[in-house]
């Protein structure tokens, strides 16, 4: 009789792997404690571990970039009226400066600002501390350097030559790296969340940190290798995806700040999530919006027009949701600077999306295509995001540094300066676009050479008042921003001490296992 097969069972593969994993983990932990930590401890400023320090870095960087970017925008606006202004230096010529300004606004201001938002908001809504405060701070420092080098390269004429994707490829790679670092930090924090239910801002943040590197990375690195219309198709996809990422970060931030600042719950999470999915679904399709009636395939233009109309759905979702949130308490807008800016910024975003949808129709493009009209769209969208960002800073900056906001009155002044300034720019550029479009049509109808160089001065002269108005509007926004910066500085220097808001309530240290009694 053969012996019963009941001897030692071989260990299961799962258990072996688990043991191996634990061993590796312990080894990594040992290396970390013995080698890396002592080195890191020498650079407490560069590699802070205190909660919210990464967010603080990003907030300060974004504010500084904001001043730089708006001053550049003002110089550009002046250049359009006085062509000789500062044009003796090659690095300050209009074309190079225009690329640099757009890059500062997109990457220096909005991206950095919303990174600050994510680093601060994600721990607060997940109930977990940020996955790595050090990596977060390093991300921000790296990002600032990358943008600064990129701006210098653009000013030296090293451009990729594609509108919206001007940065040369080394900068693209570094920016992609920054985006992946941010994505890693956000996703890892969300994965460890204590609050199991995903809060609304997290939906938008996750969509943005995943979508942006994919679209920007692919489009930027691939677009230069395509020719002609194919390149336009690839670049359009990248620009739409990048813009959509920024808008998602902005809307997510608004969904965090508004209820916190006013103390009112969000009207409907369901509406917010409906808005999220409709936005995520539609944005990859709108890439060809800026080439309607152009040489590209017509069906792609139709798709882009259709989906830009679709984008009214998420805009209305946000609008209805915030309206519902505020419905019985509009008075809180006047007491809370943050809420005021969030609502104002959202209004600009919604207006911008209507402007975009209306302006992309073929019949409208016949008039306003290639005119100053899209400057109006972009100003409304970017301005709305900028206002949401300022709302975030008004809400979080005092809570992070533990000083009460110096003056809510100044904030109100800034709000009206910004709103009036932005509205002036949007309206003047839209009107100038319509005027330019109809002048071109009139030129064709009367068979005069308005659309060519000899007759172009008719258009130049007709839209010059709009460009002058635009300088005025831009100046108001800049003054508002300087008030904002002064307000922040005063907050740091003489604000009353308040309690620092910790993102996550400190948990008691667990007793180490096997510790002596």
């Amino acid at each position, binding site marked *: 009789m053969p012996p019963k097969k009941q001897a030692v069972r071989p260990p299961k593969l799962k258990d072996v792997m688990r043991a191996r994993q634990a061993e590796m983990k312990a080894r990594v932990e040992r290396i970390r404690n013995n080698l890396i930590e002592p080195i890191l401890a020498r650079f407490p400023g560069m590699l802070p571990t205190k909660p919210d320090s990464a967010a603080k870095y990003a907030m300060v960087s974004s504010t500084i970039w904001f001043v730089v970017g708006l001053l550049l925008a003002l110089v550009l606006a002046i250049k359009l009226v006085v062509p000789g202004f500062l044009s003796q230096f090659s690095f300050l010529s*209009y074309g190079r400066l225009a690329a640099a300004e757009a890059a500062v606004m997109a990457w220096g201001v909005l991206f950095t600002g919303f990174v600050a938002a994510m680093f601060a908001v994600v721990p607060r809504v997940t109930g977990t501390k940020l996955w790595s405060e050090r990596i977060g701070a390093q991300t921000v420092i790296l990002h600032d350097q990358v943008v600064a080098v990129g701006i210098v390269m653009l000013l030296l004429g090293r451009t990729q030559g594609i509108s919206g994707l001007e940065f040369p490829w080394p900068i693209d790679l570094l920016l992609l790296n920054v985006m992946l670092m941010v994505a890693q930090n956000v996703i890892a924090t969300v994965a460890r969340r204590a609050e199991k239910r995903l809060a609304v801002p997290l939906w938008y943040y996750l969509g943005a940190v995943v979508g942006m590197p994919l679209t920007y990375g692919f489009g930027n690195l691939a677009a230069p290798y395509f020719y002609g219309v194919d390149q336009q198709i690839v670049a359009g996809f990248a620009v739409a995806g990048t813009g959509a990422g920024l808008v998602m970060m902005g809307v997510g931030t608004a969904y965090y700040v508004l209820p916190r600042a006013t103390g009112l719950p969000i009207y409907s999470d369901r509406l917010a999530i409906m808005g999220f999915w409709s936005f995520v679904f539609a944005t990859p*399709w709108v890439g060809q919006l800026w080439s309607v009636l152009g040489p590209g395939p017509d069906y792609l233009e139709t798709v882009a027009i259709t989906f830009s109309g679709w984008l009214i759905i998420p805009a209305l979702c946000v609008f209805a949701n915030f309206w519902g949130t505020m419905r019985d308490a509009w008075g809180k807008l006047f007491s809370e600077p943050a809420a005021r800016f969030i609502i104002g910024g959202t209004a600009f975003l919604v207006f911008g999306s209507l402007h975009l949808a209306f302006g992309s129709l073929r019949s409208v493009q016949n008039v306003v295509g290639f005119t100053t009209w899209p400057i109006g769209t972009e100003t409304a969208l970017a301005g709305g995001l900028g206002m949401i960002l300022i709302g975030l800073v008004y809400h979080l900056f005092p809570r992070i540094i533990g000083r009460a906001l110096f003056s809510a009155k100044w904030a109100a002044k800034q709000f009206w300066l910004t709103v009036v300034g932005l509205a002036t720019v949007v309206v003047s550029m839209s009107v100038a676009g319509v005027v330019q479009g109809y002048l071109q049509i009139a030129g064709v109808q009367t068979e005069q050479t308005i659309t060519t160089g000899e007759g172009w001065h008719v258009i130049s002269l007709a839209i010059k008042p709009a460009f002058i108005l635009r300088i005025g509007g831009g100046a108001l926004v800049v003054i508002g921003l300087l008030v904002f910066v002064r307000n922040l500085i005063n907050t740091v220097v003489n604000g009353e001490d308040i309690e620092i808001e910790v993102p996550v309530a400190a948990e008691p240290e667990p007793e180490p296992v096997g510790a002596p009694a």
Partner: protein
Amino acid sequence: MIRRRSLRGELGAAGPGAVIGGTIACLVLGFVVTVLLPITGESTAAEAGAEPREYDAQALAGRALYIRESCFACHTQTVRDAFSDSLLSAAPSEAGLYDNEAPNLIGVIRLGPDLSCVGDRQDDPDWYVRHLRDPSAVRAESAMPPFDYLSTQELRALASYLLRLTCEVG
């Protein structure tokens, strides 16, 4: 039972995996339809029509300058299929015109006139050099900035590039 629960379960109850996966799925769908199919399909090649432009070495140097100075920030190089563009050339620009152009320099805004047929309108290279050096001296109301920091050689290269931008058939 499971079905009922998923129907009743809240829309907001999804985890991060669903959000990330859904976003990627939407992106891939959009990518396939609006990027992959058009750039790999035959339709664009069939509709291409026009012949691409040929440039010599000097014109290529001028093209590089056109990119370096971001001329495309204010000038387009395409005649749209629109009424307002109908005096610019006999027919709208077709995709084939850009087949050997990377970047394509089609542009997005006209703060100055369209340049796709500028070589037909003005064929004097010296005029271009004078105009680029100080536009308002040539055309009083011009809103174009002067490019007097460029050397004469660079301006000549730019001029030879602009002279190549013609639309005449044949």
